[in-house]
């Protein structure tokens, strides 16, 4: 009988010990290494790809105007990196052998970081806008050309090349 009593006591103790540990909070952990690659890239978008000025009376229309051209600049660069948009003409406005100096093709611009006024060139790229760090920037550029009585008749063309640089 004594043996049975001791067995019961021991069994109860085991149950109590077991139940106390059963309520202890258990945790398990695991981890994942995360890597995100962010590379340099640049994207430049103009709201139009051609400008066509029809003939006009210089007295009535002394200046041809393109109206606002939206310039959308998106760039990823290093921290503190310079982002620039430049414009370079491929030459003067030409019609056969006749020319109109491309530096008379001027612009006005609006928008943060955009150069407010400028003149085109085919010898040196002109800065249309400059910024620091990654981001996207939107502005407008309006091109103007004097409508002079001195121009020889013809259809004059030139191409303006825009370059966005984000090192």
């Amino acid at each position: 009988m004594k043996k049975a009593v001791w067995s019961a006591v021991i069994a109860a103790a085991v149950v109590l010990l077991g139940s106390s540990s059963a309520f202890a909070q258990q945790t398990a952990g695991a981890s994942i290494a995360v890597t995100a690659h962010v590379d340099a890239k640049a994207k430049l978008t103009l709201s139009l790809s051609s400008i066509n000025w029809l003939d006009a009376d210089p007295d009535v229309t002394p200046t041809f105007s393109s109206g606002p051209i939206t310039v959308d600049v998106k760039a990823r660069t290093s921290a503190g990196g310079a982002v620039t948009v430049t414009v370079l003409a491929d030459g003067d406005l030409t019609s056969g052998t006749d020319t109109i100096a491309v530096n008379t093709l001027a612009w006005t611009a609006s928008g943060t970081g955009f150069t407010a006024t400028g003149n085109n060139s085919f010898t040196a790229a002109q800065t249309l806008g400059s910024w620091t760090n990654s981001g996207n920037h939107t502005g407008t550029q309006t091109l103007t050309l004097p409508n002079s009585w001195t121009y020889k008749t013809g259809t004059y063309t030139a191409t303006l090349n825009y370059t966005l640089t984000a090192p």
Partner: protein
Amino acid sequence: MRGSRSARAARPAFPMRVIAPALFLLLVVAAGRVPAAQTSTATLNASINSVARLSLSSAALTFPDADPDTVPSIQASQGPITVTAKARTSPNGTITLTVRASDELRSGLNTIPASNITWVAAGAGFSNGTLSATTAQAVATWTGSGVRAGTQTFFFRNIWSYATGTYTLTITYTLSAA
């Protein structure tokens, strides 16, 4: 005379009239020493404690570079991560799985908030969420012991304003069984 010898030879050494009383005596003696009835109880104790085990199908997540205009949300190259949680707890005990980022995404001195990583979850008890470097975020909760599995598909918010670099952090999962 011959018949009398045959009868003596066939007689057993312990005749029944001797064995029967002897057996009866043995039974009586035995009955006096052994109780009439006995019960005995054997107690079986199975100790089942709280335990938690967590496994992930991948130890790494990689977000490749992409054009923010075409891929505004980059899915991790590994695809869905399978999360398996095994836990023993008290009846109706709560089991929780949380995740926390070690820090913001870092590339040298440049940082991207860890909150730009989100996940879409699938599986009973799992929920969608956004990573945080300051607060553990719930991935899943259940009630009672069991084995549960689900998936998390991670996405990285891809915007132009990030500085270039290779950004890293570590996310830590914690499975708790109360």
